[in-house]
Each structure stands twice: as structure tokens, then as C-alpha cells.
């Protein structure tokens, strides 16, 4: 997450989706406080969110991955069907790898935890609005974990282009997991920030398109809440 000056630009149009009204109010207060962003709409359930997002055409949608009626991933899928250009940043209290991966695979361009600080959140929103991908340390860890080990050679649909990370991508993800911002990664690896961003976008694409069997299995194993208590 870069620390570029944003104040000079037009405020970011943000749409909030979260079934907790209190949380929406908190986020709205935080991100609009500096004038960097404005909230163009809010919704607390899947149907309303889909409808209103399509009407208000925000720069970026900030949505909670855990929601009733199919949750965040459902909103992402439904909106992208009608307006493919919409950009989503997923947000969650933490931990539930399955929900996070599902949101990303549905089309969200990034994931941050709810513990994120306001400046970090604004940076992340800005990046996603501009078409970049945003990986929090936790998401980077999820991805490294999911793509760890050798892929099964017997996998029918195995595609090395999609089902494996390159060494460079792995390095970038490791640095993200260690808490490095894109700028710091660029300095560390002697590459440009743009190159870092393109590596992250490539990982995002793999995450969304990979058929890698482990991805699902891994997410299942990581699932914190048992399916039926």
C-alpha cells in the first residue's frame, strides 16, 4: 500500500456493503473524515446491494465477505454480471480463509481485515479503484499456503500458467506477508512499483482462474467453523 498524496485528487466514490449498520457508520465516518472519499451508497443485504451498486456506479465497493444470503461473493458475482467494470475490495473480521478466497475468486480485487487503519484502508480503496490488486499480509499468507507444495501431476486440468506461482511472485507475496508496502518491496527487490503491482495482479488472476485442486481443499481444511455443529 503506497503512501502517495491523495488530497489533491477528486474524492473517491465508495459504496459500503455490510450487514452491520453500526460498522457501516463507523467506516463512513473514518473514510470521509479527510475528504479523500465520499460514500455514494450503502446496503445491508445482497439484493439491495446489487441493485444500488448498479445504480450509483461507485469507483469502488467495500464489502463484508460474511453476510446472510450468500454473502459478499454473491454480491460480487451478481454485480459483475450486470456491470463487469465494478471494482470490489473485500473486508472481513479475519480468519475465514474460505470466504476470503471465495470473494476473490468471485472477482474482488483485494482483501483487507477489519483491523486495518484508516490511512491504510484509504490507500487500499484508492489502489483497487485504479484497477490494482490489494493484498493484505493475511491474504498473501493464504495464497502462499494455498499454492504451497508441488501441484499434483495427475490433476486433469493442471495448467502451469495458472496453477503455479513464479519465484518472483512468491518473493513478492512473502514480502507482503512480512508487512512490506509495495514501495518497500520495489526497493527490496530492485524493481519498480509498477512491476510489483503487475506481479500482484498476476497472482490475483491465478487465484481467480486456477483450477488447482488444493485451493478448494485447503480452504476447506482452513475453515474455522465446522459445517454442521
Amino acid at each position, binding site marked *: 500500500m503506497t503512501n502517495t498524496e491523495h488530497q489533491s485528487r477528486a474524492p473517491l466514490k465508495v459504496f459500503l456493503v455490510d450487514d452491520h449498520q453500526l460498522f457501516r457508520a463507523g467506516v463512513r465516518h473514518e473514510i470521509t473524515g479527510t475528504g479523500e472519499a465520499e460514500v455514494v451508497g450503502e446496503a445491508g443485504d445482497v439484493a439491495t446491494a446489487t441493485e444500488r451498486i448498479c445504480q450509483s456506479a461507485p469507483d469502488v465497493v467495500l464489502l463484508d465477505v460474511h453476510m446472510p444470503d450468500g454473502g459478499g461473493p454473491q454480491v460480487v458475482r451478481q454485480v459483475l454480471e450486470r456491470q463487469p467494470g465494478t471494482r470490489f475490495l473485500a473486508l472481513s473480521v479475519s480468519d475465514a480463509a474460505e470466504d476470503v478466497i471465495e470473494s476473490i475468486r468471485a472477482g474482488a480485487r483485494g482483501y483487507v481485515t477489519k483491523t486495518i487503519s484508516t490511512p491504510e484502508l484509504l490507500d487500499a480503496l484508492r489502489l483497487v479503484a485504479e484497477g490494482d490488486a490489494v493484498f493484505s*499480509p493475511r491474504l*498473501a499468507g493464504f495464497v502462499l499456503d494455498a499454492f504451497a507444495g508441488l501441484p499434483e501431476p495427475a490433476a486433469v486440468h493442471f495448467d502451469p500458467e495458472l496453477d503455479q506461482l513464479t519465484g518472483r511472485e512468491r518473493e513478492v507475496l512473502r514480502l507482503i506477508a512480512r508487512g512490506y508496502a509495495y514501495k518497500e518491496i520495489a526497493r527490496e527487490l530492485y524493481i519498480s512499483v509498477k512491476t510489483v503491482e503487475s506481479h500482484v495482479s498476476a497472482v490475483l488472476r491465478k487465484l481467480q482462474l486456477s483450477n488447482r485442486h488444493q485451493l478448494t481443499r485447503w480452504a476447506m481444511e482452513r475453515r474455522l467453523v465446522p459445517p454442521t455443529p
Partner: protein
Amino acid sequence: MLGGVAAALAVKLDINPLAARIAFAVLTFVGGAGLALYVLVWLCLPAEANGHSIARLALADGKTVGLVAAVASGLVAAMVAVAALGSSPVVDALSPGLVSLAGLVAVWRHAAPEDREAANRFALLVSGSGPSATPANRRALFAAARLLAGAGLIALGTSTLLAPKHLNGADLAVAFAAIGVVAGVSLILAPWWLRLGRELSAERRQRARAEERAEMAAHLHDSVLQTLALIQRSAGDPQQVQRLARAQERELRSWLFDQGREQKVEAVGLAAALNAVQQDVEDDHGLRVDLVTVGDAPLDEDLAALVAATREAVVNAAKWSGADVVFVYAEVEPDEISVFVRDKGKGFDPSAVAGDRKGLSESVHARMHRHGGAAAVRSGPGEGTEVRLTMPKRPAA
């Protein structure tokens, strides 16, 4: 024993229920008085559930009073007839049985409602107006058969009591008669007892649910409500509020999701151990620890040292860096395990470390070296600090 009367009486009189049961049994076999007494007590003791004795219910119902009177008078008539024929001992033996029969009518009137329903169905079936062979009808038939058998047994027992020719072996005859009556009564009242049992177990289930609820309420009170109160009181101190909220969230989460796994031995793996470090430091120092682990490994001596060194490095960052978040990244690779502890705080010049930073070199470096690992510190004034800890993985023995 049967209607739980002995036990209830025992409670009432504050004596041993076994003693009450034996007393009833003995009295039953000696002239059948025990049986009469049993039924009487049954009538008069209030049911635990609603606090009303059957006698009270029966008296409130005019029809029952009439019925009891009718049966009793009929029986008295029979007794008088028998007395006219034979000797007085017969009357002595009979009277308790008669009293019990009269009482049973009252009991029956206020016993299981499904029995009366079954009887009605049976009446319909016999009169040919109801559909046949439905499960309900079969049930009705069964109930009717049961009732008939019960009534037959009672009749048999009573008639034995009434028959003068058995008077020679009086005691034995009375005993058989009593057994017959008891068996009949048991047959008739079986569904009622079953229902009582079912109600009892339903009540027990309900109590279990209530206990669970109470436990949950107690837990929420001890944890969430306390924390909310604390948060309100420390509203002026955002760091304290954050610390409280975070600790509470973690506690609640583990209580909600880990309940089934409580038996498991805690913190056996590297990830779990690092999680504990994260929690402790967040609680003690009020800053955020962003922990990411990739892979996991069982905790051996070497990894325990690695965890201890990590803790030291995180605490150091919390104390000295001035940053409000520390990143911890741990990765388990086939031949090596590495942990990175990074903060974006003020940093320092590692070559000019003074005595007060001894903690790092002593407990981190030395500890890692002792276990065959390594520690490297990268820092510079204004650049934050990163501690890199590596521990070679021992080949599986």
C-alpha cells in the same frame, strides 16, 4: 413402585422410601390393607407437577363422586350379600379391596386422556361407524384389549376374594387375589405411568436446556458485559479500549468456535504457539500484532526456542519501536523454518547498540545459536526494524 406413591409418601413423612415400599408390600399380602392404603395415599397426595391431588380433582368433578358412590355402594351390597352367606373373616379380607376398587374409579377418571380417547374410538369401531384398520383403530383395539385384560384380572382377583370356598387357605388366597388386582390395575394404568415417565424426561431435557442457557448468560456476563463496562469507563483512552475490545473478541471467538475442541491439548503446533505470543503481546502492550503463518509444524525443543526468540523480538518491537503494529510472518519450508518480525518504527543503528538493547542479543541471538538456528537484525534510524529468525528443520527421527 407403581405410581411413585411410596416415594412421595416417604418424602412427605421423611422416611426411607424403601421402608415405605416394604410396608405397603407387607400390608398388601396381609389382608390387602396395603393396597387400599396405597390407593388412598395415591388419591390424596398432590401430584408434584400441578400440586393437586387426584382426590381434590375427583371431588371437584361431580360425575366422579357419583361414579365412586355407585361403585362403592354396589360393592358394599355385594359384601353384605357375602357376609350373609359366610363368616365375618371374609368381610375383613374384602373391605380393603373394595375401598381400593372405589378409589381406582376416581383414579381412572383423572388418568391418561389418551385412554379415554382410545375407548371412544373403540366404541365407534364396535358400532361399525368408524373406518377400520387405520393405525389409530388398531391402537384403539389394543387399548381395549388391554383394558379388558386388566378388568378381567381385577374381576378374577376380586372374585377370589369373594369366593367363600377358598377360605381355608385364607392368607394364600388373599395374596393371590391381591396380586391379581395389582396386575389388573397395572395393565390399566400402564399408559398413564408411561406418560408420566415421558413427561419427566421431557422436563429433564428442558432443565438441561435451561442450564445451558444459564451457563451462556453467565459466560456473557463474566466476559462481554464486564468488558463493555470497562470500555465505557475507559472511553477516554482509545488504546485501552482497543486492547479490551480485541481481547474480548478473541475470547468470544474461541469460546464460540472452539468449544468442541476443548479436550485437545493446547498449543501443540508452531502456528498455535505463535498465536499465543500474538495474544499475549497485544494484551500486554496494546499494539496490533499482524500474524501470518504459512504451514505448520509440531512444536519440538528447537521450535519452542524459536517461539521464545520470536516473543522476545515482538516484545522488543512493542517496547522500543514506537510503531502501533508489528508484523510477524512465519513460514514452514521443507528444510527450514523462518520467522520475520518487522515494525515500521523508529529503528536503530545495529552497530551502535547500547547496553539497554541487550535483550535482543542475549535472548534472541544466543537462544537461536544454541539450537542451531540463526538470527539477523536489519535496522536503521527511521527505517523500522526487521528481525529474521531461521531454524533448520531436523530430519524426522
